[in-house]
């Protein structure tokens, strides 16, 4: 008995099906509109340079007294949390009565080349938090940090614990040097000073290239061969293209902030080893004393679970909750399971601490 048992008739059928799908694709693809994203109505409550803080508007007024401020990563656009009507973390949080704000970092250009992590965390984030608190008429806000934004939120919460009511981190790297962290391995020998001095701001295409190279065959080829299966389905194709747009719609990275992030976080692993300094502040996770909810994805190839779950060993809070989500780095926002599980988990956890 051999390992291959492909019936000729079935192989032929595969070929014919593919042909049929490709033929249908000629019609489907040309009928697609330009994909749109960001479905929930929102208003800008604060602007500074390229940064805008938005407040989302739900169908009914929020019942939560303390708002949530979402701090997204710099490396992608934040509309992933509100991608489309049936894939929106924001919409689902609003539906549960949360009051949701979000920082949109914009697209850095040459004028932002010299922004440091201090400018981002003790500057932009601090002023955004103040703006949200003022707008919502509260003293403290809940922070929801995602990926790199989660690392920033941890730093902010450690430096300004008086401004954060509860801290939620999603797919957030904490230990940047776990063995399966491929990105970390690659940048360990990078001469980041030479890199930033030469490139200035780090081009988004270069960042995307690195991400694609984490799983080159799957991301450069298999994904598109799989696309043939949905070529005749307009809705599915639009979903695919929406995601595709998000993946490649990436901002450049401000050079100085990138330099410091690679040196201190990836190469120095100072968030867990200690010695991290942002501006004039020493950052110690022991100062994160507010309640913490840490959500990570079990199949995350960008931020391996091991990089995230160690947070429990480093924070100073006695109220720490951890949720392992069955999915990947992106599925945690857009999969069907994510829509059911993640917003509820966040809402329930916050509600339990609002009593």
């Amino acid at each position, binding site marked *: 008995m051999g*390992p291959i048992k492909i019936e000729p008739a079935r192989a032929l059928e595969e070929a*014919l099906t593919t042909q049929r799908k490709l033929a249908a694709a000629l019609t489907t693809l040309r009928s697609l509109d330009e994909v749109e994203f960001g479905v929930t109505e929102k208003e800008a409550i604060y602007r500074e340079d390229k940064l805008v803080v938005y407040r989302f508007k739900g169908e009914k007024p929020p019942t939560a007294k303390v708002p949530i401020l979402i701090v997204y990563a710099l490396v992608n656009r934040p509309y992933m949390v509100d991608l489309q009507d049936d894939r929106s973390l924001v919409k689902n949080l609003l539906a549960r009565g949360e009051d949701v704000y979000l920082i949109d970092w914009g697209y850095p250009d040459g004028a932002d080349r010299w922004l440091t992590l201090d400018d981002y965390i003790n500057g932009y984030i601090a002023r955004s938090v103040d703006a949200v608190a003022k707008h919502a008429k509260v003293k403290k806000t809940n922070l929801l940090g995602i990926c790199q934004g989660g690392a920033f939120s941890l730093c902010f919460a450690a430096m300004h614990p008086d401004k954060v009511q509860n801290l939620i981190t999603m797919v957030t790297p904490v230990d940047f040097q776990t063995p399966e962290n491929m990105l970390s391995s690659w940048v360990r*020998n990078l001469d980041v000073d030479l890199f930033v001095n*030469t490139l200035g701001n780090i081009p988004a295409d270069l960042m995307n290239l690195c991400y694609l190279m984490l799983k080159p*065959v799957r991301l*450069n080829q298999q994904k598109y061969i799989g696309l043939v299966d949905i070529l005749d389905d307009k809705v599915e194709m639009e979903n695919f293209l929406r995601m595709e747009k998000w993946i490649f719609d990436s901002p450049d990275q401000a050079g100085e902030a990138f330099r410091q992030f690679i040196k201190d976080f990836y190469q120095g692993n100072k968030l867990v080893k200690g010695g991290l300094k942002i501006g004039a502040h020493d950052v110690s996770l022991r100062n994160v004393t507010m309640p913490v909810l840490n959500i990570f994805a079990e199949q995350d190839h960008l931020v391996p679970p091991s990089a995230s779950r160690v947070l429990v060993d480093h924070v100073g809070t006695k109220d720490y909750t951890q949720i392992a989500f069955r999915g990947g780095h992106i599925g945690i926002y857009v999969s069907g399971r994510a829509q059911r599980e993640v917003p509820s988990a966040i809402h329930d956890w916050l509600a339990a601490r609002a009593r």
Partner: protein
Amino acid sequence: MADSPNPDWMNQWQAMSRQYMNAWQDMSRNGAHGQASPVAPVWPPQGFDQAARLFSVGGGQGETIERLVDSAKNYASFMQSMLATSMQGGAAPNWSDALRQGFASMGGNAPMFNPSAAQGWQGMAGQGGDGFARMMSAISAMKLPSNGGVDEIKSWFNLPAFGMGREHQEHQQKSVVAWIEYQEHMGRYNALMLKASQRGFELFEGKLSEREQPGRQIESLRALYDLWVDAAEEGYAEIALSQEFRDAYGAMVNAQMRVRSQVQQEVERVATDFGMPTRSEINSIGERLQALRREVRASGMNGALADEVAALREEFAAFKASAKRTQPVAAVKTMPAKPAAAGVASVKVVPIKPAAAAARKPAARTAKAATRARPKRASREAAAAPARANVRGGKKSDKRVEKAVAATASGNFASRIEKFATASLGTPRGKLKQAEAPVSPKKKKKSKR
């Protein structure tokens, strides 16, 4: 695969492929199920090219379509490669080679794993990226000796330079050496990619041998392909996480940055010769500006400015309300819409569009134009101002006016801050540091007033 322990499945594959090819040839002759096919048959890649041309006119999804077409094309080549082997007459076809070639056509080789190695890294946009690309294309014609001779070549370019042009010559020599080193590191990186590909195929063979039990056999072409992808990714991950790869990757990127840096320096030199601004100069200005912004924030000036603007807004609103009460409606409507940069009249428009409008026009020109073109408005405002000053009371109000004028003055950010600081604190810029020294909130408030 020549030493594969699975001759049975190869025979099966061969038999299946013959039947498939026969069926395919029949279908191609007659059309699918007797119907005319709307596109060229799937497997000849030309069909995909045709589709790509059609897709390219269909909206802004071009890149995705391109990737789809490329992938489908590779998939088709993979099928064709193996089917062609199955049709070989005579002795049993070499399935080991067929599978290797088939998956190589899918990209199971170094360039597939790293499309960047050949194009991506070299073509990456960035500061000096174009120059870099041009230089790469120009010098890529240089052939490096395969072994041994590289160090010899490098040593020639490390010879000291002399005389008038020694600096330039030395820079050019360094550029060539940087490029040679980059080629060396890129070669090492590509060799590891090839190793990853080979490792992937070894794992693929292992995975195939695990599928011999009934119920675990591969029953579709897609499943065969997916199994290969799993193996390829596993093989790649093993290599990509190794210390050897980490070293090679870092060295390759660092070497490329050195080449880019050399090119950028050369471009800057040429730009300077032509009297053009350079990236270094712009960087220097940007760095200083950002430092100044931090300094201003740290000094609390920004907050004070915001407070002053808010106070002026309130004052203006009050004044506007009182003006409505005391002046005819028509007179209010003729208030200038744009701020004049100098003179009392500008106070009235601070809340509308202060800095932006002032920055667009030079102060003198704006003031002049305002006086020349709208004498009536100017005199009306000039008349209104003293009245307000009387109401608000003497020097304090005058100072407020000075500060407002400073806040809306023309010039760059730094000079506006300086004017404002002078108006607010009554201190020249040189004494700003003293004024910024920590003061108690009460004192600070007092000094602001």
